[in-house]
């Protein structure tokens, strides 16, 4: 598991994941909310797996309830990486 996790790398992985889930690339910004991106709990569960794979960070379902924006999840990963 990587521990060299600069913010750019985290954003890149998160942004690419959200695009894979079906969000429009142009709409994906740090300020975008998951609601506007049509990203739901199933997508966030998948994102949690990716975060663990890429950064060794565990995101629990209790965390997910607090995550409203793309920036929120990037910051959470950065704080725990």
């Amino acid at each position: 598991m990587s521990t060299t996790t600069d913010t750019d790398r985290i954003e890149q992985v998160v942004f690419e994941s959200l695009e894979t889930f079906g969000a429009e690339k142009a709409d994906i910004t740090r300020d975008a909310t998951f609601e506007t991106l049509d990203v739901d709990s199933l997508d966030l569960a998948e994102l949690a797996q990716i975060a663990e794979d890429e950064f060794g960070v565990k995101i629990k379902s209790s965390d997910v309830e607090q995550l409203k924006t793309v920036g929120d999840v990037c910051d959470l990963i950065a704080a725990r990486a």
Partner: protein
Amino acid sequence: MREVAVTGIGAVTPLGVGARTLHARWAAGEVAIAGGEAPCTAFDPLEFFSRKEARRADRFTQLALASAREALDEAGWADGAPYEADRVGCILGTGIGGIGTLEDNFGVLRDQGPERVAPLAVPLMMSNAGSAAIAMRHDLRGPVFGVVSACAAGANAIAAATRAIQCGDADAIVTGGSEAALTPLARAAFAALDAVSTAGVSRPFDARRDGFIMGEGAGVLVLEDAAQARARGATILALVRGIGATCDAHHLTAPRPDGAGAAAAMTAALRDAGLEAADVDYVNAHGTSTPLNDRAETMAIKTALGDRAAGVPISSTKSAIGHLLGAAGAVEAIATILTLRERVIAPTLGLEEPDEGLDLDYVPGSSRALDISAGRSAVGISNSLGFGGHNAVLVLEAA
């Protein structure tokens, strides 16, 4: 009981996208089998779905959703169902459900461990995913569930939908069947059963037949309470006149050799329709091209139709598109409706050397006109017989 009308049909089959495409190409003698299989090569999910929708639906659900859209458009439901949402349901059959999703995720489990199995695995592979997806897409809030009876599932689903409307549990039901099992495990498993043609040819009722050809696809029908459909000015394509369902209770895979179970289902469906054998103008056979099915089904037709058996034209859609498993009953019900409406009987393709004792009129070679006396609408039977001994029979009448 209330009368049940078919007001829309839709299909994605190995012969292409569209219900009419299926019947027109089959009637023209086209065979969609290549390399021993019949995939839906013309179906591009991204013509129907966003990337998000596509990755949230197993292929069997995608085929169902695309077929449903065609059927709902024809029924005039493009802007929503003309009923209260909780009076409209969706009942969809499948043989296996999302086996592609299951296989992919088993690979992940084996290679990467349990923590990497996708959160989407369960909602994609569950056998009710197709009905749930159609309900969510079109806001259908009445009875919604899947029907599972192997290769009879599509017909059992239509039968369940018909009863739900007849009894007043719903005013309309979107129904049919879907299957997408051209996957490594399903291929190997059917081959291990010795059920699949090693010659790679579907030739129902032919002496050389050696098994079925695996296909994929979906068929969806919009069924409505006929009185309400007429009142709203809908075009009625056909009536579901009768249904019959039985089980052989005999063997895991083999039918009763005398076809008694299938015959009982045919007899029950005719009784349910209030019709006699003499009223039947066409039989769309299950006709899988397996040695056992085609012989037992011939016996069943003789038992159920008596003197009429020798005279009624019979053909097998599987001669053109292979066996769509849980979708077969629905796709073949649609083929039957179009046969009755257009009065063109598509042939049993590949049938050149009749087998001993298989001596009915299987319409070999090329299409034939369906002759119906003036002032009468055509009546047909669609047979669906599944592993597990499931027999489901529909009696349909052109409107």
